[in-house]
């Protein structure tokens, strides 16, 4: 199973909302859709929050070894202040 993306989840969630709006689902199916929707919305929220504000500087030396280093971006903070 390919990993579900945020946009897939959103699309599904939208579709589910439309289905429920149409209102012609049997109860069990509707509940199932609802659960799915809740799960999807949770998934989306999680997706939005799961990442970390982190800036990494990648550098590779001559032999191809990649090293990560935090990127010090003094200007950024300053500009956020503005």
């Amino acid at each position: 199973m390919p990993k579900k993306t945020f946009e897939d989840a959103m699309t599904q969630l939208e579709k589910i909302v439309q289905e429920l709006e149409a209102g012609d689902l049997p109860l069990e199916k509707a509940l199932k859709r609802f659960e799915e929707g809740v799960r999807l919305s949770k998934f989306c929220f999680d997706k939005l929050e799961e990442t970390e504000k982190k800036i990494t500087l990648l550098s590779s030396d001559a032999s191809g070894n990649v090293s990560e280093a935090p990127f010090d971006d003094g200007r950024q903070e300053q500009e956020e202040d503005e």
Partner: protein
Amino acid sequence: MALVDRNIYSVSELTEKIKSLLEKNYPFIWINGEISNFRVPASGHYYFTLKDDAAQIGAVMFRGQNKRLQFMPEDGMSVTGYGRITVYSPRGAYQMILEYLEPSGIGALQAAFEQLKAKLSEEGLFDETHKKPLPVLPRRVCLITSASGAVAHDIIRVIHRRFPNMPIEIIPVNVQGEWAVDDILAAIELLNSRRDADMAILARGGGSLEDLWPFNSEKMARAIFASEIPIVSAVGHETDYTIADFVADLRAPTPSVAAELAVPVKTELLERTSRLKRQLISDFSGFLNYERRYIRQLNDRLVHPKKKLDDLRLRLDDYCERLHGAFQRAVNRQKERLNWRTDRLCSNSPRILIKSRRDRLSQLNHQLMAAAASHVYTRTLRLKALNGKLHALSPAAVLDRGYSISRRFSDQAILRDASRIPIGEWLEVVLSKGKLTCRVEGKEENAQEDV
């Protein structure tokens, strides 16, 4: 010439045809010429004529574009421009709308650029079908640019403004000079091998055509095309078009725009998700409420059979009443029948018989008595008659006249001859009244006289 064969255009039609023909055939082209008749009206747009030995064409560069020109055009200046041709219908004039203008003298690079562009275009490297969609929400954005330039800072600033917790990785590269192409190729390779990021921005600031030249490299174009992770190009200024821009999955006019295109606004997504969720809940609640109302309605209509019970109860009562009535009547009927028979039985009792029998019996009894009495009576009468006769004939009648009868006592033999009676014999002498018992004392034996 026959009238029907004429193909007559109105001026507008013709002009429209020409306009579309021109604009279609010469979308964006490079043009070389000498500026003349240069003027700048109050609008700030540049108007001038480009001419060479044999021809001239009107040109305009609007204020938005000409602001970025790094030189001021003047009459007699030889320039190379980039733009499209258009027809201004009211005057029937055609002219160039220029996006970019530079002083002439770099024509060779230009030719190579055009050549490569045509080749790659033909190979389909620029086809929309090959452009990979950008993720709506990237996991991590990779920045391929100079670590020291302002471009990286601009992009980071924009990204974090839009999505504060978006992780960013920077692969620092030389964006100009002889190492630039190799650096960028290595960066794209690193990007695809790490797969930490799911999109990349290839950016550099503005510069001269020569400065931007590495981005017109065929190798870089093919590397961008081959990258499995979508790449947004933001090279130079808005007016700078490089091969990289054409082959990239998305071209941004400036690095800041690239950041905007690459990363969504987090609050918007949060809001959208929340909205969908709220809608989800309210829709489903609505659905449930609807169902509940419907069930309640059905439940209300679930008529319980009480009325039926009442009907049945009435019917049952009726049956019971009729049952008892009918049976009581049946019993009464039988009772009447029985009474009728019993009455007849009693009135025909053998009592009648008894009376008649008794009468008859009494009669018989009476007859019996009478018959018996009569029987005795008749016999008594006869007996009395006989008895009278008998006594009338009694031999003792002579005795009344004085005769008597003598009998030997022993045998009662009547005495007729005295000789036969010895002296001393006991005699019985019967008189008229009574008898005498005598003894013979003496006798006389005279037969005649004896009597």
